[in-house]
């Protein structure tokens, strides 16, 4: 085999890896997805049927379990038959969504922001099926991607609603807690990559930290993907070596908790409550409780009130007030003073006294 061909093959392989890592805009995006998106029915005991499309597996990482747990919670209140399509890449999503719709499934829930366009396309072809998607941009908020929001509002069919992947309230409180818990005056945030949406999440954390301590120093590291355990651990180690003693991570695995434990510092996890994984290390978690948003949509299908529901809720942002995002259980290191102070700030956000700023400008590792 010629040398040129050899270089070409390796280059293509590496480029595929780079592009896979860059592909995600707003959601956890495993770089590879090999399983067939072919649906695998899991019957329960109700006539209402729902198919969930997951990017990874229901028991893998933290993002997909968050969505799956949300469905299980709703299922306790509203019986429905649930089926899963797991490990569905963005490229395979339209086929999986269309497949479930063609089978006459009542509701198709696609648990990733990267499925937005596919949902809009398929939903238009199946007006009698109800679709629930996710989107990281609240159209009511002026962000740097207003065109996307306008596109969504203009194009989303009437049988489609979007749940907001907008945990900014939670990130703000996490920043507040991190700054108060820090003894070194230096905290960190570990993110997969930069994007307008991701910047808003990061900046919400920074605003919260600054609200607690105006002089707090904040380090930021991007590891390139939601799943990059070696880089994640090195990023945590690097920030710990720079003096950070509380680190917030928005990644889809537990490697950050392992490294925080190794460095004997505190971490704040994301998506699901990870306190029980290591109570000595996990200060708290920013929990996205999808059941809060899912329940309204599924109930509307069940009760036949979709049209009225959709008029008001074609996009449901997450918020502390609604309970769709909140802090998880406190770890062992959380003091009573910290809990009290955080409760007070949560109450102010819930009441509207504090409005978390939506800033998608580039955040910087910074000293005040």
């Amino acid at each position, binding site marked *: 085999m010629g040398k040129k061909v*050899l270089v070409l093959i*390796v280059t293509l392989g590496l480029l595929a890896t780079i592009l896979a890592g860059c592909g995600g805009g707003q959601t956890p995006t495993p770089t590879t997805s090999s*399983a067939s998106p072919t649906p695998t029915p899991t019957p329960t005991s109700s006539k209402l049927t729902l198919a969930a499309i997951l990017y990874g597996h229901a028991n893998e990482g933290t993002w997909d*379990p968050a969505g799956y747990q949300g469905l299980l919670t709703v299922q306790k209140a509203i019986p429905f038959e649930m089926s899963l399509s797991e490990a569905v890449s963005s490229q395979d999503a339209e086929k999986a969504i269309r497949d479930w719709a063609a089978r006459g499934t009542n509701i198709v829930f696609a648990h990733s922001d990267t499925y937005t366009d596919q949902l809009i396309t398929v939903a238009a072809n199946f007006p009698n099926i109800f679709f629930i998607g996710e989107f990281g941009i609240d159209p009511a908020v002026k962000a740097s991607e207003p065109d996307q929001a306008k596109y969504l509002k203009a194009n989303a069919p009437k049988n489609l609603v979007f749940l907001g992947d907008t945990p900014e309230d939670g990130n703000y409180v996490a920043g507040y807690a991190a700054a108060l818990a820090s003894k070194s005056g230096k905290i960190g945030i570990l993110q997969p990559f930069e994007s307008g949406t991701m910047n808003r999440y990061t900046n919400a954390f920074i605003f919260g930290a600054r609200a607690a301590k105006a002089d707090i120093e904040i380090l930021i590291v991007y590891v390139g993907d939601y799943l990059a355990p070696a880089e994640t*651990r090195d*990023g945590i180690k*690097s920030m710990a070596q720079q003096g950070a003693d509380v680190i917030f991570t928005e990644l889809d695995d537990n490697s950050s908790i*392992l490294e925080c434990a190794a460095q004997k510092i505190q971490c704040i996890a994301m998506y699901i409550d990870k306190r029980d994984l290591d109570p000595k290390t996990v200060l708290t978690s920013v929990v996205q409780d999808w059941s809060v948003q899912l329940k309204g949509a599924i109930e509307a299908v069940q009760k036949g009130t979709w049209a009225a529901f959709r008029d008001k809720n074609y996009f449901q942002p997450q918020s502390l007030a609604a309970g769709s995002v909140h802090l998880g259980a406190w770890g062992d290191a959380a003091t009573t003073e910290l809990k009290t102070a955080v409760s007070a700030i949560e109450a102010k956000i819930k009441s509207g006294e504090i409005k978390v700023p939506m800033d998608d400008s580039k955040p910087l590792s910074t000293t005040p």
Partner: protein
Amino acid sequence: MALDLIVNLIFATLNILPIYLIASLGGFLSQRVGVYDISMEGNMTFAAVMGIIGFFMADSPWMGLLMGFLSGAFFGLILATLAVKFNLDQIVIGFGLWFLGLGLASFFYKLYVPSDQHTEGFPTLAQLVGYKGELTGFARFLELDIIFYLSIVLLIVVSVVIYRTRLGLQMRATGENPSAADAAGVNIFRIRYFTILVGAGLVGVAGAYLAVAFLQGFTSGMVAGRGWIAFSIIIFGRWKPSNIFWGCLLFAGINGLQVRLQTIGVTIPSDLLTMAPYIVTIIALIIIMSRTGRSRIPSALGIPYYRE
């Protein structure tokens, strides 16, 4: 401050080195006997799952590595059978095995890996010698885990076997001129089967190590191109173990450097920094391969052997 940063970078590099070194040496062995193992990425991904399964079988990270080796050797067996016995196109086989690895990983993960997966990593040298004090300066070598030291031993063993033993001579002859080696009495098929199995097994060990020691669990996509980087390091190292070692140091170092540049607030776009290891790999490959006339590529690499 700057010195601390450099020291931290050095140890971050050494910390991640075994993943690249073990995988690259494994791939090198296969190529040394004339067979491309394009499937390293898929092999590592499948071995990562098997490593976690192995850990839970015996509650031991060593069992995880053993399972990683066995799963890798399984890939090697398929590769050897198709490429050596049936003389099929090695690139096509490799791509097929790459995708097979990704699919098998997903399948076995779903079937056998518990959702509350959490493994224990390998002991550091400090833990093995019972040292509990603070580690500074060169004493920080004690904070590296035992796999780092074993990977260095592996490098030495591979170098000695390849260049200082009769077996190594037969392996090199098989990769350079199988007809002549065959005429001299070397059993080409046995040498290739054995070497590919061991090489692919080592690639599997690297995948299992990544899962058991770094993530201490498995998630899809966790190998994240490391199999391809390891493959390219073999080319970068011009099919020589000592060069491969320096290549691994370079790529592991770039990984650590990009993270540290971010923590000190360097204003290079983060996307560029996180892509740096891949970009450097591609550039290095192009430079290395464009240096015609000095290539050490095994002459029979990728060429099916038909016994006359």
